[in-house]
C-alpha cells in the first residue's frame, strides 16, 4: 500500500508524469522536485504517527498528539531560531528543532501532572497554553522577516513539503527509521503503562526510563519532521486512531503500523494538497487539519 501510494503521488501532480519516455524537464520534475517531496512526506508521516501513537500510550490518553501538545510548536520555534541566527549551518535547524520539541514536551508534562496523576483536561489545556505561548513568540519573530521570506515561512508553519530536498529527506529518513525501531522496542512496557503507571511499576516496568526514552525519541521524530516540513498537524492523532480501530491497542502492532500508515496518509494528503487547486498549492498541514480537527472533537466528546 505504501509503495502504491508513493507511485501514485510521484505520478500525479500539476504536471502528470508517466513512468516511461520522460522528457528532460519531466525527468527533472520527477527526480529533483517530486520524488524528494514524496519521500520526505512519507518519512514525516511515519515519524509523526509513530510519535503520536507512543505518546498516547505513555500519557494514557488517545488525544495526545505532538501538534496539540505544543511539541510541534516547540520544534517550530527552535527551527525558526536556527533559521534566523544560524542559517548557514545545515544541522542547526534539526538540532534546534529537537531541543525545542524536547523542552515543550517536558514543560507540558510538568504542567499536566499533579499529585493525583494526570487527567485529559489538564493535559489538553497545558498543551493549548504551551502551543499558544510558543505561537506568539513565533509571530514575534516572523515580524522580523521580510515579505518574501514571510510567505514561505507562513506556509512552512502550516506544514509544507514544497521545500523538500534530498539531504533533508536522508536526515528525516534516518530519524524516522531509528526512532520507530526504538519506540517499537518500548512497546511492551508501553502496553503496561497504558493500563496505568502504578500498575506498570507493580508488574516490573522501569517507568521513569520508559518515559525518558519515549519523550526523547518522540521529540527527535517531531523535531526532525518539523525542521524539514513545518508543523503538519493531527497526523499523530488520526493515524494511530485508525490503526487501533483495525488491530486493537497492542503497541507492538500499533507503533510500527502507525509509522507505515502515517507515511501513506501524509503522501496522499500532500498529493491532494498539490492537485486540488493546481497549479497553485495548499500546505499539506491544511489538509491534515481539515480531517483531524473534526476527529479530535469526536474523540473528545466520546471520552
Amino acid at each position, binding site marked *: 500500500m505504501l509503495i502504491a501510494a508513493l507511485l501514485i503521488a510521484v505520478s500525479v501532480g500539476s504536471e502528470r508524469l508517466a513512468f516511461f519516455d520522460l522528457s528532460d524537464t519531466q525527468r527533472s520534475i520527477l527526480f529533483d522536485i517530486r520524488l524528494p517531496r514524496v519521500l520526505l512526506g512519507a518519512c514525516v508521516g511515519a515519524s509523526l504517527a509513530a510519535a503520536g501513537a507512543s505518546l498516547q*500510550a505513555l500519557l*494514557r*490518553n*488517545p488525544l495526545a498528539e505532538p501538534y496539540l501538545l505544543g511539541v510541534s510548536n516547540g520544534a517550530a520555534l527552535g527551527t525558526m531560531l536556527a533559521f534566523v541566527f544560524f542559517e548557514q549551518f545545515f544541522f542547526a535547524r534539526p538540532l534546534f528543532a529537537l531541543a525545542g520539541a524536547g523542552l515543550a514536551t517536558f514543560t507540558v508534562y510538568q504542567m499536566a501532572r499533579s499529585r493525583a496523576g494526570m487527567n*485529559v483536561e489538564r493535559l489538553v489545556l497545558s498543551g493549548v497554553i504551551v502551543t499558544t505561548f510558543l505561537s506568539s513568540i513565533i509571530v514575534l519573530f516572523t515580524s522580523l522577516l521580510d515579505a518574501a521570506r514571510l510567505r514561505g515561512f507562513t506556509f512552512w508553519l502550516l506544514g509544507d513539503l514544497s521545500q523538500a530536498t534530498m539531504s533533508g529527506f536522508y536526515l528525516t529518513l534516518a530519524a524516522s527509521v531509528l526512532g520507530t525501531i526504538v519506540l517499537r*522496542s*518500548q*512497546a*511492551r*512496557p508501553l*502496553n*503496561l503503562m*497504558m*493500563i*496505568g503507571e*502504578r*500498575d*506498570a*511499576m*507493580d*508488574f*516490573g*516496568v*522501569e*517507568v521513569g526510563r520508559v518515559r525518558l526514552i519515549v519523550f526523547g525519541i518522540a521529540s527527535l521524530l517531531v523535531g526532525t519532521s518539523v525542521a524539514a516540513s513545518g508543523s503538519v498537524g493531527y497526523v499523530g492523532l488520526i493515524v494511530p486512531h485508525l490503526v*487501533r480501530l483495525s488491530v*486493537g*491497542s*497492542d503497541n*507492538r502492532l500499533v507503533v510500527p503500523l502507525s509509522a507505515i500508515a502515517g507515511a501513506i496518509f501524509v503522501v496522499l494528503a500532500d498529493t491532494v494538497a498539490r492537485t486540488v487547486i493546481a497549479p497553485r498549492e495548499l500546505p499539506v498541514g491544511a489538509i491534515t487539519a481539515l480531517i483531524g480537527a473534526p476527529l479530535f472533537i469526536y474523540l473528545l466528546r466520546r*471520552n
Partner: protein
Amino acid sequence: MLEVKEISVWFGERKVIDNVSIALGSGEILALLGPNGAGKTTLLRALNGTVALKSGAIALNGAPLEELSRREIARNIAVVAQENETKFPITVLEFTLAGRFTRGAAFGWETEHDVEAANNALEMCDLSGYAKRVMNELSGGERQRVVLARALAAETGILLLDEPTANLDLAHQALMFRLVRERCRDAAASAIVITHDLNLASEFAERVILLKGGQIFAQGPTAQVLTRENLQEVYDVQVLLDENPASGKVRVTTVY
C-alpha cells in the same frame, strides 16, 4: 520471604507509617486491617517498593528491596489493587498478560506458556470465555476479578491485595479468598490482604495486623487479635463476637 524492619513512611511533613515491623512466612495469609486513613494502602505500597521509606529496611528473600530492580521485585511480588479505567480498548487477555511482563524477553512477544498461564488464571477466576472482551465494557466486579487473574498469572511467591473483594458479590468474595488460600497452600506462596470485611479475614487469614494511625495496634494469630476490645478501640464502634457455626472461627457483628 518478606521481612519488614521498623519502617516509617512520610508524605511531606506527615508521618503515615510509623515504625512498622512485619515478618511474612511461607504459606500464610496475613490480613491487614484498620480504619480508613490508618495507612494500610501506603504500607502495602511500601512493601513492593513503590512508596519510598523514610527509615527502616525491607528484605525480599534476604536481599534489600531498594537494591532490586522493578523487574526483580515484580518477579516475586504481584499486586492486586483497585484498577483505574483506561481509555484504550484493552482486552481481558491483554490485561492479564501484563502479569507475565517479567517472564522472558521484555521487548518481544509472549510465549505460548505465557498465554496458557494467563488463560488458566482467567479460568480460575471464573472468567472463561472473557479473553477477547474489552476491559471497559466489563462490570466493576468482573474487572476486579481480571485484576486478580493478572496477579495469579504472574506466578509470584508473594501476593499483595488491596481490598480485593470491594466490588465482588458474595460468591466471588469467597472465590477470591479461596484462590488466594489455594495459591498459598499449593505454591508455598504468601499473601497480605487489606480488607474491611472482618469475617472474611477471620475465615481465611492465619494472622492479623491491626493498624491505627500508621502504627501497629495489635498483631498475631487471627483469633487473638480479633477481640472485642481491640476492634472497639481501633474502629471506634460497638461489636459483638461469637462463633461462626459452620467454621468455628470468630464472627464479628457490628452493633448499630
